[in-house]
């Protein structure tokens, strides 16, 4: 059973569709990155999953239970900027959340504070906290009752590099303990490091759902581009033309050869038969950034 299920989720505000027909699932123990530019519909989707916003159509489930509903008690969230009661200390804010939840042992507050390395600042009023400290405290609150699902919206905003690394480590730990983590971000490099699966959304539409490898290796495309190195690049270009393949000269004396995916396995053999002495041939992969740009703006095809 998937821990998070979104089924044909749509949210319209008047005539504007913030989210359109979005369907995906996240399993227990998985960290999924929810990728998209600002205004793409990430936060609205997370709000629907957290039961804060009612979908116009479609529905969501957490741990098999409809949202909104009691299943949300197993969910930890951090949606948009972290907010707290500023007149309470960090510890008191966690205590309030623990009381509100009703099923949190007192020791968990100290454990959660230690988990985000906030023990020393826990007794200061939150109004004196920096953005990074608030972010850490929000993560402590999100994991306070050991939730089985974590919905995190831009959790590393305002953190320094060390803080980002700690959050990454923390999320990995939480996932290792069996929680499903859906973490949104518009920063590609962050998603690359945090998640093993990517959900890319743009203009409210889910454009991609799959592994990072699949996204950057263009596995969804009908052709594979190979970077071929040979003693003489011109022999590669000529042989490719002879075989009916598209080829062009690339950087560093390489040739870029487009092969139908079904025929990719035979490329080296076919080039050899044409007398080409191939020294290396590797499939061309995008950087995450260019892969993402290719997804959200198919007209632009960065090399």
């Amino acid at each position, binding site marked *: 059973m998937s821990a998070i299920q979104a089924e044909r989720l749509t949210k319209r505000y008047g005539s504007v569709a913030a989210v359109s027909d979005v369907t995906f699932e996240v399993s227990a123990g998985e960290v999924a990155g929810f990728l998209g530019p600002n205004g793409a519909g990430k936060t609205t989707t997370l*709000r629907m999953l*957290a*039961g*804060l*916003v*009612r979908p116009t159509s479609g529905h969501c489930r957490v741990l098999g239970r409809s949202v*909104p*509903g*009691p299943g*949300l*008690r197993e*969910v930890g*969230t951090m*949606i*948009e*900027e972290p*907010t*707290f*009661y*500023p*007149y*309470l200390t960090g510890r*008191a804010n966690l*205590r*309030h*959340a623990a*009381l*509100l*939840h*009703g099923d949190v042992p007192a020791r968990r507050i100290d454990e959660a504070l230690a988990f985000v390395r906030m023990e020393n600042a826990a007794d200061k009023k939150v109004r004196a906290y920096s953005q990074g400290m608030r972010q850490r405290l929000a993560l402590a*609150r999100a994991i306070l009752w050991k939730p089985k699902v974590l919905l995190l919206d831009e959790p590393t905003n305002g953190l320094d590099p060390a803080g980002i690394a700690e959050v990454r480590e923390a999320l990995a730990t939480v996932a290792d303990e069996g929680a499903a983590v859906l973490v949104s971000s518009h920063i590609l490099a962050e998603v690359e490091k945090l998640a093993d699966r990517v959900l890319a959304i743009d203009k409210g539409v889910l454009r991609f759902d799959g592994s990072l490898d699949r996204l950057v290796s263009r596995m969804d495309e009908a052709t594979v581009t190979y970077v071929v190195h040979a003693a003489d690049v011109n022999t590669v270009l000529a042989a490719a033309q002879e075989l009916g393949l598209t080829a062009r000269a690339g950087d560093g004396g390489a040739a870029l050869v487009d092969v139908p995916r079904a025929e990719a396995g035979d490329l080296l053999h076919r080039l050899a038969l044409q007398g080409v002495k191939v020294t290396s041939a590797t499939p061309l992969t995008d950087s995450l950034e260019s892969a993402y740009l290719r997804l959200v703006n198919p007209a632009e095809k960065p090399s």
Partner: protein
Amino acid sequence: MSGAGRLAAIGHVFRAEAFKVLRKRRVYVLAALYWAVLPILVLVTARVLHVNLARSFANEVGNVDQALQLFASPFGLVQVALAAPAYMSPTLYIVAVALVAALLIGDERSQNMWKSVLVVQPDRWAVLLGKVAVAMATLGALMLGGAVSGFLFGALGTTFLPTTFVGAWGEVAGLYLLQWAVLLAPTLFAFLMVFVVRSGVLGVVTVLFLPGLVEGIYTVLTSLAQLQPLNRINAVFQALRLQRAWEALPEYFFTANLYLPGRWPVRDAVNAFLETADEVDMGPLTGMLGGDLTLPHAGLVMLGYAVLFGVLLAWSFLRRDVD
């Protein structure tokens, strides 16, 4: 959700919100004003009156002593703690209600906390009922504290004033209970305003002034309707045969009924002081003493308001998306 589950959830909300209220300084400021400043002011005034008038002609028939017993004895100060908040402007009751609403509902908005609260505790009924329960408990604690401090300061006053512990304690306890119960209506109104207006400050301002504003408009319209000769307004009333209903409307005014239990001891005290059980034309003071309204009437009217505001609050709170 099962009944037991919801009850447990309400309990969780109650504990969490009470935890928050107990850490808010302004609650203690209000309590200090109510529990200490008010009775001290009364005792100082009583002492000044006693020192200056006890042996004067004004006290020849014991009027001054009677007045001191009425408002500075233990029983008198307990009554003052009930009545005085109803005579301030804005009344201390509505200030307390607005404060509690701002803390329990306004803070969630101004600190953008709904998104955290409603995920931690997704049962919105439980959140709403828990918060109302904490609001009523806070108001109850403030009133109870006022009564206890009034009694204690009054007891202290017996050492330097000619006052005793005599009083209709059962009756005043009933008035406290009724006054506390009718505060449910303004509490729900305040929750509704602060939630719907989506601004803590604006919501509180609305709570403080809207009922008075509506009733003020009524007064203006009534004055216009009574102008002779016939004008557009009284012509409309006569044409629609609404004159009688319009004249009866003040009996259902929010503020008049809300403060009636608190103002009741003053009406009693005035009658006692005038030594008559007969109707006395109090002129402009009539409204301040509650007019001809009765306590059961006030209780029923405020119950009606509570139901109205409660339904509107539940409807808006349960169905609205959280930004």
